[in-house]
């Protein structure tokens, strides 16, 4: 690993066609940080996340992973960089026609030459990590929302990614389940040193797990660099403080 930040976003503009959702998005994420991208509804959080993981090209600007240009790279190089990412989608996006074990096993089977029994062992271990041991043969539709999220996390962790990108971890979860998921994310970061990018508007989650953060402003279509969320809550930008206090006067 060279000295470059783990993730570096420079002057990114995102949007659809003529409609720019955010411009001048600029931040860097260090190795092992939990980085929070926060903002209100419609501010472009998810669009930014899609640009980070390779699902939607940005209108301008660069994204670098470990110093390597992501969108400027050839498709194959980009796919190689993509493989360093593990992604947990908002709705978990588990493949509905596959069992949990098959969901987790698929990426492993694709990119390693391990034998079936070896893969099975890894899958059992990953599912155990997220507290779903014994659910190998269940289909996604048979699980509760919280279990789906955890299974999605197990799949995102399947290839031991250096970077985990998580879209709205707590959406659709009750406060306790959301908190367990937060704890799980922190636990994984602490033990594996994984860099985590979390896209969310869940205040409890932002304040509990964020090391560093940016705030995307839906009105001005620009971002505010906010640093540590706890710090931002005490003496950050008034707009961000208002957001972090659910609208109470900053």
């Amino acid at each position: 690993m060279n000295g470059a930040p783990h993730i570096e976003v420079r002057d990114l503009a995102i949007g659809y066609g003529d409609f720019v959702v955010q411009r001048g998005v600029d931040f860097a994420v260090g190795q092992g940080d939990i980085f929070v991208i926060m903002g209100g509804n419609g501010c472009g959080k998810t669009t930014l996340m899609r640009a980070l993981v390779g699902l939607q090209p940005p209108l301008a600007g660069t994204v670098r992973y470990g110093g390597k240009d992501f969108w400027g790279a050839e498709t194959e190089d980009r796919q190689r960089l993509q493989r360093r990412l593990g992604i947990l989608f908002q709705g978990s996006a588990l493949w509905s026609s596959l069992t949990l074990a098959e969901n987790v096993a698929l990426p492993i089977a694709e990119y390693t030459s391990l034998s079936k029994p070896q893969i099975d062992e890894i899958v059992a271990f990953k599912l155990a990590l997220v507290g779903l041991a014994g659910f190998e043969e269940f289909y996604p539709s048979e699980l509760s929302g919280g279990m789906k999220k955890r299974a999605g996390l197990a799949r995102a962790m399947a290839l031991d990614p250096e970077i985990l990108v998580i879209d709205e971890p707590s959406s659709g979860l009750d406060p306790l389940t959301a908190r367990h998921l937060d704890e799980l994310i922190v636990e994984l970061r602490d033990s594996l040193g994984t860099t985590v990018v979390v896209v969310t508007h869940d205040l409890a989650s932002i304040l509990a797990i964020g090391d560093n953060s940016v705030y995307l402003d839906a009105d001005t279509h620009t971002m505010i660099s906010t640093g540590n969320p706890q710090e931002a809550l005490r003496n950050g930008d008034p707009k961000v403080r208002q957001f972090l206090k659910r609208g109470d006067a900053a």
Partner: protein
Amino acid sequence: MDRAWQFDLRSAEAGAQVLVLSGRWCMDEGLPEADAVASRLAANARSLGFDTTALADWDSSLLNFLRNLLRICAARGIAASTAGLPKGAQRLLAMAMAVPEKTLLGRNNGPRGIVAQVGAATLEFFRGVPAMLAFLGEITQAFGRLLTGRARFRARDLWIEIEEVGPRALPIVSVISFLVGLILAYLGADQLKLVGAQIFIADLVAIGMVREVGALMTGIIIAGRTGAAFAAQLGTMQVNEEIDAFKTLGIAPIDFLVVPRILALMLMVPLLTLYSGFIGMLAGLLVSVTIFDIGVFEYYTETLRALTATHFFVGLSKGSVYGAMIAYAGCLRGMQCGRSAEAVGRAATSAVVTGILLITIAASVMTIVYYQLDI
């Protein structure tokens, strides 16, 4: 029962007017327009107050009336005071007026002229063509990967699709083919009777079913049954971000989701076509024997004489092409699906329409080509 609505304008002093509202101001009363009241305001009016002491009952239609009235007052420079209104009405009015109405949001949903609609539809169609070709290209690449052994292909997916597409379609294919065979036999009997050659019903039914109608009927059934299912399945996966999950893993969703479906249809539709031809001939036999007094053995030998390997080849080739077209249309519309339940419905509908259109075009082209080649 309270009295119906009533209003009265009083002038307290020069330019200051008070609107007195009384009775029921509710939706079912047919309230007056704000304009009608506003037009009775004195020309020199400077302020407007309200007196609602005799107001019996009101709902949101009163608020709507007041909101329009207040707007008119604002436009005419009349200072309106809501102080005389019921407390609740005052608060609701303040809420409704708090956020100014956004105009020019870039939405123009008004009715469009027929020319504009035709133009938009035409543009839409031509915009769709490059996407269709691009998808065809992606599928070709995926098959290239499959043939060179570099594709990520799971045989199990193919078997699941084959089971779903083939055996489960047998009942409906049987029913339709039987009835179509029956129709063909009647149609032929009527015409052939004129020349006293009713035995040729066997030729007509056999060649018609095996070469042409079996494949066409099977194609249309499968387009409605399986093409729509493909679009709905892939569309739902699109909504659930499952397709995105494939993409971010660097796995081409085409290899995983589209190739097995196309293969399954290319294999199963020809077999269903054969089956359909067989059932159609059975129906022809039944009609000929029971209605037109043709012997079972006679019909059987005539059928054998008429059917050559070429007819089977033509039928099978058509079935295979139709199968590919249906799968292509279903997968295309599924992969193009938007991210809502409504979009999934549209994708399924569009898959059937596109599928049947493609089948019909292919049928015409192949019939002409085979005729010219004398096959």
